[in-house]
């Protein structure tokens, strides 16, 4: 694997391989020195055209735990804000010897462009492109799901999730599917790993043609809860700018119809994991009771993000897909 651009490119074997490497990576936190020397001398550039402190520091932590050198390149305040082209930026990073570029961009397809134009001969990791994909988020979600489904600790070392997939599980993804790269990456990956995906959203926040996706669609959250015994419910963040574009009448109505309210939380089966890619709008798409409940694995997702990103960087830069 030279690049990680889309979860659609991952076979079941690829995906399980990456998740298993991530399992190995969780062991690093048990070491007295919480670092592996495997990427010494490799340079990882975090090329962020769009602000995302959470994702950037997760990749940074992952690269540093593998002993790579990390360069953070934020488009704000750099030459990009003065009009430098993507081509020149990429070639500059190439000239400086970047081995991997972790790219975040507000335009769909930009990581794909970097990987296919020949501007730079580095591995490209998509850290979120527009409303297209966010593959490492989907990987960390599946990693977390595997843990909870196998009765393992939701994060950290231990457990017995290795080698497993998500067969015969049902996962709900709720909210702004239309603008969500997390949803797209999850639909591909969850399906590849054997899970049944249920999308729950107002029709205005579903993409045209969603009926061609390998997912069941509900407009009504409560109907979906009646129809399925979900292993996990993944709540998506609704971006602030969507709140005033007539996708829904107002935040109160959205919250009533598509939010994880206390009432919906209380009717969930005991085993349902509550997930959220963060950052959360508390009291809007998710109530505090759900967010802070023992069923919420939201902070475990964050923790697992580092292990998954370590696995991705390790696999890309060493070309190894198996265990360490």
């Amino acid at each position, binding site marked *: 694997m030279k690049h990680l651009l889309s979860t659609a490119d991952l076979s079941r074997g690829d995906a399980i391989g990456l998740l298993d490497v991530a399992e190995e990576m969780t062991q690093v936190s048990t070491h007295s020195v919480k670092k592996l020397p495997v990427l010494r001398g490799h340079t990882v550039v975090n090329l962020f055209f769009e602000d995302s402190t959470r994702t950037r520091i997760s990749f940074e932590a992952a690269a540093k735990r593998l002993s790579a050198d990390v360069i953070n390149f934020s488009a704000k305040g750099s030459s990009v804000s003065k009009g430098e082209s993507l081509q020149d930026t990429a070639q500059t990073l190439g000239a400086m010897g970047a081995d991997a570029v972790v790219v975040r961009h507000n335009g769909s397809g930009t990581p*794909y*462009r970097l990987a296919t134009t020949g501007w730079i001969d580095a591995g490209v990791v998509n850290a979120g492109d*527009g*409303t*297209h994909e966010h593959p490492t988020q989907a990987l960390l979600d599946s990693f977390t799901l595997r843990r909870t489904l196998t009765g393992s600790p939701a994060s950290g070392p231990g457990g017995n999730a290795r080698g497993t997939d998500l067969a015969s599980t049902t996962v709900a993804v709720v909210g702004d599917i239309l603008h969500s790269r997390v949803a797209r990456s999850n639909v591909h990956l969850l399906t590849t790993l054997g899970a049944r995906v249920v999308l729950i959203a107002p029709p205005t926040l579903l993409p*045209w043609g969603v009926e061609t*996706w390998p997912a069941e669609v509900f407009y009504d959250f409560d109907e979906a809860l009646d129809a399925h015994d979900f292993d996990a419910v993944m709540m998506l963040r609704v971006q602030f700018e969507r709140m005033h574009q007539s996708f829904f009448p107002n935040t109160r109505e959205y919250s009533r119809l598509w939010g994880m309210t206390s009432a919906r939380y209380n009717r969930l089966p005991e085993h349902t994991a509550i997930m959220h890619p963060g950052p959360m709008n508390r009291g809007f798409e998710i109530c505090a009771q759900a967010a802070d409940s023992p069923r919420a694995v939201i902070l475990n997702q964050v923790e697992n993000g580092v292990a998954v990103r370590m696995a991705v960087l390790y696999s890309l830069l060493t070309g190894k897909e198996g265990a360490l």
Partner: protein
Amino acid sequence: MTSLLIRGANILGQEVGDIAISDGRFVDVTTLTSPDEVIDATGLIALPGLVDLHAHLREPGREDAETVLTGSQSAARGGFTAVHAMANTAPVADTAGVVEQVYHLGREAGYTEVVPIGAVTVGQKGTQLAELGAMARSAAGVTIFSDDGLCVFDPLIMRRALEYVKTFDGVIAQHSQEPRLTEGAQMNEGVVSAELGLPGWPAVAEEAIIARDILLAEHVGSRLHICHLSTKGAVDLVRWGKSRGVQVTAEVTPHHLMLTDELVRSFDPVYKVNPPLRTQADVDAVRAGLADGTIDIVGTDHAPHPSEHKCCEWTAAAMGMVGMETALPIVVEAMTDYDFGWADIARVMSRTPAEISGLREQGSLEIGTGANLVLVDPEASERITPGAHATMGRNNPFAGIEVSSRIVHTILYGHRVVTDSQLSDPHPITRGGTWIA
């Protein structure tokens, strides 16, 4: 005072014969006893010179993308003896001064007849009519008005424009795009855009404007031309409009006859265009519409861009494709499954566009009309190589495609501007003459 005899050409793919030209006009073969020059056209198809109703020559304002000269040379190499220059230049061609500038630049270039299109509204802003009468009565003699690139979205302004141009038998060429439904649009809205997460340009945004404009044209009894229609629904609407007797003509581009939105999966901005590449069902519908006459003409929407506007990420890239040099071969390839012969090619790429524009010296091989002619090798085997084209734009989406026809000679008012597929000297009009001596 020159004469030219074209010997043994396959005229419109219908009969082999000779074509005689004298002093820039087609003449009776029997009157030309000692021609100055003879072209052996054995095996070549003779068509009236192609007429493009839709090209962006970029001058004035974006001479880094194309000039009237390079655009004219590109046109000649594509077999076009007349090219209509769209109004979205900088400054916008919304005054007699700008259209006359483009007109004169075309004559100075001398490779094709450059016919300026005037903007409908001042600055293409859609709020106030430009001086349509002044442009019509200028040296450029503008008959087609368009805010192309932008839609005349205000229904009242559109109505007034349609009515007003009746003064000089003008036509409004509409870029049909409902602006609110296409805010931020990056590609066709469909299954592919949903997967790629690119904001979509729904078919309804095109069709809603076409439906409205057909009804407006019917109501006020004016001529409407629909630029580059691209959807199945648009073809149905035009068919319906024509069945009601509305004076509506429609145009399709070579790329909408050939390419689909599946190509956007590459995120290569060479496929980024407005209107966007649609689905295979749409491609099939526009082909059928061209074959059955619902769609009247092919227009290239030739839109050169400097490489920095295409060698970038998809969302930052400019919209548009070049196409004059590949138009005829691509249309031939696109229509192979239809009963669509060389006479049909001549109809949709020469005669009808000349009629819409009112160009009396173009679009015909009749004796007495301007000797505008293209000779095509129908059995060439060519791989499209954008780097070898005369246009400055390298944003040709057909790179690498094998085509079977090649433009061999282009004759502009009796003067060979392309010989053996290479540019020759421009027409003597560049030295201050007229098209016809």
